[in-house]
């Protein structure tokens, strides 16, 4: 069982290499950011698999923290892209009337 879970963790890590290629290539910033999101989700999966494989269930807390903070980089990213650096991409009209 443990070997299977460790192998699954290794396979998920390998699938994340695709995300790396996308961060490198882009082309748009959104592509790069979403590839980072993929790495975050994959990281959560790997941590869960490691926790179960070793029977170290305390490791789940690391997955909990990663999942809790998974969207933070994306939120900071969309904030930084708005004209004043603090807007919301969903707001219809930026205040400076861009």
């Amino acid at each position, binding site marked *: 069982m443990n*070997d299977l879970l*460790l*192998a699954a*963790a*290794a396979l998920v*890590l*390998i699938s*994340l*290499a695709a*995300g*790396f290629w996308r*961060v*490198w290539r*882009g082309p748009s*910033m959104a592509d*790069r*950011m979403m*590839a*980072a999101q993929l*790495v*975050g989700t994959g*990281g959560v999966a*790997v*941590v869960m698999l*490691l926790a179960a494989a070793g029977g*170290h269930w*305390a*490791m789940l*807390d*690391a997955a*909990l*923290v*990663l999942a*809790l*903070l*998974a*969207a*933070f*980089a994306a*939120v*900071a*990213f*969309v*904030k*930084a*892209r*708005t*004209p*004043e*650096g*603090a*807007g*919301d991409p*969903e*707001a*219809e009209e*930026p*205040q400076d009337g861009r």
Partner: protein
Amino acid sequence: MISTALDLVLVALLVAAALAAVGARGLFAGVVFFVAYGVFVAIAWLRLDAIDVALAEAAIGAGLTGVLLLGAVGHLTRAGAGAPPRRPAIPLALACAGISVMLGWAFLSLPDAPGLQVPVAAALPGSGSTNPVTSVLLNFRAFDTLLESIVLLAVLVGVWALAPDAAWGGRPGLVQRVRPDGVLAGFGRLLPPLGLLVGVYLVWAGTKQPGGAFQGGTVLAAVWLLAAMAGVTRAPRVTSLVLRIALVAGPVLFLAVGMAGALGGSFLGLRPDWAAALVLTIEVGLTLSIASALALLVLGPPERAA
């Protein structure tokens, strides 16, 4: 066998992410690689059975540095800074390679001893915690931890010193604009209660299993920053009394406990029968200070008058 293969894949990804973060075209791609690198470093710490460190890396890497660095890239772009010059930084690369070689040499020349695990395990009863990492941080090497908590304050004073005179007394960070019924506002309301739960849980768990003030405090700081970015809350004024009490709570409580120990014979010594309660008290104070200091460090100095 499989476990070795897993480690090899992990190390390959780690090195690839590190090289890509330095060599990527453009600041933004470099920052994104650095965020991914943080996730892999956290997994690597888990492979080394250092769960406490993995928790800290997950909270810092995924929560705070991403927000800090992406905000910095945004600032640079708006300020009209062009792309950094792309010339090979050979002296820097040589210096880094030299440090890596020295670290590798130091690691290989370590004596083949079990380290401090055995004496720490022997002294664990009566230290106030059954998590060896917490015992080391708050009891066996309490002086280092006390100074570290003061360093964090000193750094914040340094950052605040960059504020223009006219802006002093204002609120740090930008004024956030959010669509009231949008996804971001909803996320900002939904996540903080869960984040508060996870942060407090990590502090509480730290006395007997991996976790503690730094991990919990970092999570709380990150969650508070999200609430601020989503417009749910605003940064307090830098002159706010409540804020300043939170900032100094950790070092003050720590020092008070240390002085009480001095009356009993040794500075920062914890009486075994009181140790558990004292460790938890210090942890709670440190959590408040670490959470508020880290959040304010990410926000930077106040830039406009209130």
